[in-house]
């Protein structure tokens, strides 16, 4: 009886090991199963999901106009103090003072891509871009100014 148990133990043990080897052997001889992404080589064909949150950008149209009113809703919504809006007063042609943004400072190094600022923006002035290659040699380069120089607020956005 003892011998029978002993032999069946050896048999099941060895057969379970062989089963595992068959599985790994299968993958060894089937290079088509390889799933490695050739990242820097496939940069041109790499497509990220359109909702992927890479960084906050402010789209400008062809007239160098954006939609930011400087309401600071995003600044308040941000949990990390990533956004800082510096406002100024523009004087409209009618001579009325109007609040507008001077600089939209975005600290990428503090950003956690939580999307709360984009949710809170009433005029959809900022969106998430899909860029994920953020590495730079100097940390100060991560502090970005999102509004382009001399850009203006688009007409009709309050």
């Amino acid at each position: 009886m003892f011998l029978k148990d002993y032999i069946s133990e050896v048999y099941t043990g060895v057969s379970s090991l062989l089963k595992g080897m068959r599985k790994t052997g299968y993958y060894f001889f089937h290079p088509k199963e390889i799933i490695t992404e050739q990242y820097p080589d496939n940069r041109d064909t790499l497509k990220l999901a359109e909702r992927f949150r890479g960084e906050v950008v402010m789209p400008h149209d062809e007239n160098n106009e954006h939609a930011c009113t400087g309401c600071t809703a995003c600044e308040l919504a941000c949990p990390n103090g990533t956004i800082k809006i510096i406002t100024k007063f523009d004087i409209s042609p009618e001579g009325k003072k109007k609040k507008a943004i001077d600089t939209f400072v975005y600290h990428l190094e503090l950003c956690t891509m939580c999307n709360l600022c984009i949710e809170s923006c009433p005029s959809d002035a900022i969106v998430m871009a899909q860029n994920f290659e953020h590495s730079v040699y100097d940390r100060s380069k991560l502090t970005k100014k999102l509004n382009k120089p001399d850009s203006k607020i688009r007409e009709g956005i309050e």
Partner: protein
Amino acid sequence: MYTETQVIKETKEGELVINMGPQHPATHGVLHLVITLDGETIKKIEPHLGYIHRSIEKMSESLNYRQFIYVTSRMDYLSAHINNLACAMNVEKAMQIEVPKRASVIRVLMSELTRIASHELWLGAMAMDLGAFTPFFYTFRERELITDIMEETCGARLTMNYIVPGGLMYDLHPDFQQKVKAFVKQFKQKVTEFEDLVTNNVIFQARTKGVGILSREDAISYGCSGPVARASGVSCDIRKIYPYEGYDTVEFDEVLDTAGDSFARYIIRVKEMNQSIRIIEQLIDNIPEGDTQAKMKAVIKPPKGEFYTRVETARGELGVYIVSEGGMTPYRVKYRSPGFSNLSALDHMARGSKIGDLMATMGTLDLVIPDIDR
């Protein structure tokens, strides 16, 4: 914490004190275990925590009710979605908001996908702890599909922040259903691979069976939850006993085992993945139409009081305890993390076993260090 002289004073003749971690391949993060050994036999394990403590509880006190949800993704990053869900549910409970049906079905679907992704990663890492490197890559292949689905719908792969109080940040991606179905199909095909490679492997069984035994009484006393407690026969699945988000409308089994050893914990998690697949299959074709977000005020000010929600993450029971003073920010937030309680049982489980057994025990506890440290 002990100072060095204290350790030397308390060590008896012939005992060896080794510091496992905070940089160690098997602790999966910055867990520091001070292990007293007699030869290869473990006499005592003393966990030292705090290497990744960010005091999320204190941080949450200064963030408002929309903002503090995102921080919880950084606790148990493998079930980030479920953590967010717990916080959002707590705010909804406080504000007495009914979440639209569509949103809650999507929340359940995402939770189950997160659970599968977490268990897949655990399975690979656990096999790697025991010296089998290859299953890690096979599990990551399936996990990758889930993270792709997450990326497409939620916008991020790991720390999704898809849930806001009152519903979801945005609706599903149009490809969601088709991709989830493709994943389910592939998962069902490939899950047998782990049976050949890991589950039925004689070495794996020898390494895990009868190792790190936790009795039912001890599991309850140590406050264990999740698969760790269920492997010891404690019925503690929050999805079953205190159903939330419509878990009572789907059919699934709470997987229980009585052995309480590492192998039981392993089997529980593997079976749980299949149960999650079952939930996903039931819901994926029955996502109701409608809104994904309930009407909410821009500024959330819950009434004065104390609110507690419990959810079942991949690791066990996560409790979120919020004390509100009626202001914009919570007065006090406490996260009852599953890993913290599970870790406290490690010393009891591993005493008297070999160092090699510690890997099996620790691996099946499924420790995520940021979850323990918070």
